[in-house]
């Protein structure tokens, strides 16, 4: 099967994981039940990671207890890296994982981070991203939550040096009884920094999602630009999306905006598509893909972006839920 990206051995302790369709120019490392040979990054001054680092974290039945671990990504002055963090569950146990991702970016350092969460319905996974940024550093984060029981992402970014830029985006999908919560806190502690947030959710079934996003602008953080948007698409009447923006602005020369929407599928668009012979389900799918498009387009790596589009499509087609061994459909 073409989509069968990872080879998962029957006995993960004995055999090795492999990727069948590796992404281009990517180094792959596995973290099994919170343990791996390579966790995190430590780059010196001006060091540029030649390939994208893909960290595939899996939970297996060998370790069913609650896990918590943290990883550090430290990039010194002008260092650059691209990182893809994937998380999966290999069997149907009630896994609970608490993860902390610490990011420290020196002057002018650039980190592109994509997070792909694809776990089964009983899994609980909370991740806390703590980011410290110095002058002129750039941090791009895209969190794609495809599947999971209870997923929580907490993102805290501290802009501590002038001219810093952070773009944090996310796409979350939830159906059945799934829950996804997102909390973003952006601290503009110094002048002349940019931040943007775009989070979109597609909800079906009786799922619940929450988004709470705070932009804090300190008193002397003049010339701050900070934007935030959260849009949710409800595909069922029983799904609920909560959204709560907060602005805390103490400076006066700033450009800030926020917007939040919760809407349902557009009837006129659906009818138009159906009148052209596009079956109802397919029309819904097109609409949901169109909704998600803006977030996935922010993923800079083209082959990764294409894979995310195709994973999104199979997810929206409900292919994930039919698969007993969920991890086999993921990248």
């Amino acid at each position, binding site marked *: 099967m073409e989509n069968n990206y990872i080879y998962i051995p029957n006995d993960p302790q004995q055999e090795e994981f492999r990727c069948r369709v590796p992404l281009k120019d990517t180094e792959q490392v596995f973290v099994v039940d919170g343990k791996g040979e390579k966790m995190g990054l430590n780059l010196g001054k001006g060091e540029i990671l030649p390939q994208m680092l893909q960290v595939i974290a899996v939970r297996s039945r060998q370790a069913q207890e609650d896990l918590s671990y943290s990883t550090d990504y430290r990039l010194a002055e002008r260092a650059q890296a691209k990182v893809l963090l994937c998380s999966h569950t290999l069997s149907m146990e009630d896994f609970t994982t608490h993860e902390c991702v610490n990011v420290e970016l020196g002057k002018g350092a650039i980190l592109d981070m994509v997070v792909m969460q694809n776990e089964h319905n009983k899994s609980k996974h909370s991740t806390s991203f703590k980011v410290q940024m110095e002058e002129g550093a750039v941090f791009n984060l895209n969190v794609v939550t495809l599947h999971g029981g209870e997923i929580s992402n907490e993102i805290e970014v501290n802009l501590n040096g002038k001219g810093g830029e952070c773009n944090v985006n996310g796409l979350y999908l939830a159906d059945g009884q799934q829950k996804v919560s997102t909390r973003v806190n952006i601290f503009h502690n110094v002048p002349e920094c940019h931040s943007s947030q775009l989070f979109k959710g597609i909800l079906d079934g009786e799922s619940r999602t929450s988004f709470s996003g705070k932009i804090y602008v300190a008193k002397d953080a003049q010339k701050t630009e900070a934007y935030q948007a959260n849009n949710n698409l409800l595909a069922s009447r029983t799904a609920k999306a909560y959204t709560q923006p907060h602005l805390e602005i103490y400076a006066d020369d700033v450009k800030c905006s926020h917007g939040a929407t919760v809407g349902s599928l557009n009837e006129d668009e659906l*009818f*138009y598509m159906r*009148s052209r012979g*596009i079956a109802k389900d397919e029309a819904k799918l*097109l609409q949901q893909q*169109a909704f998600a498009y803006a977030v996935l387009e922010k993923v800079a790596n083209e082959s990764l972006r294409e894979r995310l589009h195709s994973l999104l499509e199979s997810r929206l087609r409900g292919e994930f839920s039919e698969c007993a061994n969920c991890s086999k459909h993921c990248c």
Partner: protein
Amino acid sequence: MENLIEIKNLHANINGKEILKGIDLVVKPGEVHAIMGPNGSGKSTLSAVLAGKEHYEVTEGTVKFMGHDLLAMSPEERSWAGLFLGFQYPIEIPGVTNVNFMKTAVNEHRKQKGLAPLTAAEYLKLMREKLAIVEMDPAFSSRGVNVGFSGGEKKRNEIFQMAMLDPKLAILDETDSGLDVDALRIVATGVNKLKRPDNATIVITHYQRLLDYIVPDIVHVLYKGKIIKTSGKELALEVETRGYDWLIKGE
């Protein structure tokens, strides 16, 4: 020859208000019908009911389309069966490109006929051929469906879609409104190019000028949800010069 569509005593409500009050209309293959009528007479309502739009409640009457009960079919089934509606107000779908939209539609039609989906190259060829009919730039195909299109471009896009889907019966709801003279000629010529002995068109319009290009065999005047007059193409000219008053008074 067998009738393409047979509408008998069709009554329909929106929000409990009766809009169509007993429509009878028969269209045979090869025919062009024009429906005229003052604003609010129910022309768009009739086309919406025929295309299967939700919230329109048919309270009485029957519609047979190529021998099948049209009213029992979903909007997509009607399309597969060969019905096409050119919208008076085409819908914009941001985020769905024209090419993706039409490719999905064409392949759904093919699936219904048991045909394999078109390859990218086959689709491109077909698309270019049909775009040429309405003199549309292929650059439109990568844009969101109707997003940012001018009024005229939207109408041309409707005829492009009609050309792609090759319907048996096309209902064109005011496809001429908002068109400048060149666009009108292009759209009308496009419709004429698609005309065959085995298909038919219903054009809904307020203006004779469209009917100079697309010459109707039969002209109907719809008023307050009823067809009050049916005649040859000379009726359109008469409406153009005399308005509707003389017909309404006769009612």
